[in-house]
């Protein structure tokens, strides 16, 4: 689908990309990771045909720089930093839908799924929305059109847990026919979403590997967390994840999106001293298997 052949890019004497070679197929979900200045954004801009570069990039045999419209029609892009556009939300949606030959209604539907009623903000300038709202709107525009390749730069960073789950579900519905590049400077943020990891360092690919792809992006884990004592800070944190307690803050129950499990465990690790027990069980999984596993575990403990 996409062939990146010896792509290099320099800004004056600073070589930001150095001979990148990569092939991306439909169904690939790539975590593009690397520290700041590794070349992630530059590579993305080359893929979008925004930078002139050495080497060649072909998407289905077509160059993004010379045949922009043909290539960009297939690419949905979510930038890391939302642009400070003054145009109202409705106008932005209609502009994007207009140039993409898409139906604005589909973009509104995606935004509804992400928990953003875009019509409610239709006259509000985009720049005046909150960080999360901007991110949801940009995701709605990227996913609400017929794209075959998604490029997302830290797309879920500003989303609340529920919106993250809905976002993962939307990605899951596209994963078979679409290639995705999800850029992040931290692998743990995107690890559960991808089946391939490409790491950049000083403009070169230092890791290009396929990873276990067993997590259902659409899955939900039912979680129960038991504490040694109630703690207000912990309560505040897990409430943001949609957790509830039935015994004055000692036991908390709630859902966690499958791809968010690592992120959730990262949050819990901040309260490691309070934890008495954790249980996470995927909804819809064979309960018998889970029960049998629990029994074996209890036997092992006793």
């Amino acid at each position: 689908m996409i062939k990146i052949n010896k792509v290099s890019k320099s800004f004056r004497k600073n070589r930001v990309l150095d001979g990148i070679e990569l092939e991306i197929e439909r169904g690939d979900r790539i975590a593009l990771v690397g520290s700041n200045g590794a070349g992630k954004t530059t590579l993305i801009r080359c893929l979008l045909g925004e930078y002139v570069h050495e080497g060649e990039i072909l998407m289905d045999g077509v160059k993004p720089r010379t045949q922009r419209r043909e290539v960009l029609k297939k690419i949905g892009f979510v930038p890391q930093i939302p642009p400070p556009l003054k145009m109202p939300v409705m106008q932005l949606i209609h502009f994007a839908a207009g140039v993409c030959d898409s139906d604005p209604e589909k973009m509104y539907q995606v935004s509804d799924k992400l928990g953003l009623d875009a019509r409610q903000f239709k006259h509000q300038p985009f720049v005046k929305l909150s960080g999360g709202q901007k991110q949801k709107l940009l995701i709605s525009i990227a996913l609400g059109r017929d794209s075959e390749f998604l490029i997302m730069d830290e797309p879920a960073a500003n989303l609340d847990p529920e919106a993250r789950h809905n976002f993962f579900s939307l990605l899951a519905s596209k994963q078979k026919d679409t290639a995705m590049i999800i850029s992040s400077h931290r692998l743990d943020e995107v690890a559960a979403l991808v089946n391939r990891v490409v790491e950049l360092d000083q403009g070169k690919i230092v890791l290009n590997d396929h990873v276990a792809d067993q997590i259902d992006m659409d899955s939900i884990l039912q979680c129960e967390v038991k504490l040694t004592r109630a703690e207000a800070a912990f309560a505040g944190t897990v409430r943001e994840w949609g957790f509830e307690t039935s015994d004055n803050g000692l036991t908390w129950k709630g859902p966690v999106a499958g791809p968010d499990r690592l992120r959730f465990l990262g949050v819990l690790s901040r309260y490691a001293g309070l934890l008495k027990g954790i249980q996470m069980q995927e909804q819809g999984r064979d309960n018998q298997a889970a029960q049998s596993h629990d029994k074996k575990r209890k036997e092992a403990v006793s």
Partner: protein
Amino acid sequence: MKHLMLTAMADINESLRSRWFLIYTLIFGGIVVALFITGLTESRVMGFTGLSRTLVTYLQITMAILPVFVLLTTVRSVAGDREAGIFEYMLSLPVGLAAWYWGKIIGRFTVVFLPVFLAMMLAVVWAAIKGAEIPWGQVLFYTLMLLVLAWCFLGIGMLISSLARSADVAQGAAFLTWLVLLLFLDLILLGVMIQNGSSAETVVLIALLNPLQVFRTGAMMLFDPQLVLLGPSAWVILDTFGHAGYLVYSVVYPILVGTLCAWIGYYFFKRGDLP
């Protein structure tokens, strides 16, 4: 064409919400109102009365303000958008580079020209209400001259925006361009003439390459056909072009300069890094 119009409309809407546009509109509307308040329509100076006098004054003031306003707001907006990451996102959408660039020019031209034009129309309406005679030929030609002046400096502004990599550099370059053109109206030109003993033809040629001077002389010619106000230079101009020929030149030349600059700007925009 659809993408061109979408981009132009987006730029118009973006400008209409900007603070600069509000100030810009208030300035030109304010100038006309100020001319009415100070009673220029009623005065008789050098034989000009009523609307003619107002238009002449309005044009002289516009010549001083419009170019710098067009230059600064254009480069601030275009180079500023690029710096702020707006280009990165908007140009990730499947809009052609030609549609984007020329759509921006059309949108910007509309918002730059409309307030100036509407202020002029306000003067015409005011004159009509007051029962003054309306010199339609003059009104139409002045409108045309304002149009080409706006186009000329918009083209220069787009060229600077395409070449400069930051908003600050673009703004500095725009200001310098305006300053050089302004200085070459009289001061430097006279200095060169006196110091080097250059031929009148050379100095006039330099002046005629300056779109500001071309505009100024063209505007002058409408109420002073023999260019008495210009002094001896008038001989060179009238001998070379003739009266009608110079009026055509004063319209065609700024259009050519603006279009050429816009094309060169497009060439660099298309060839370089977009964001």
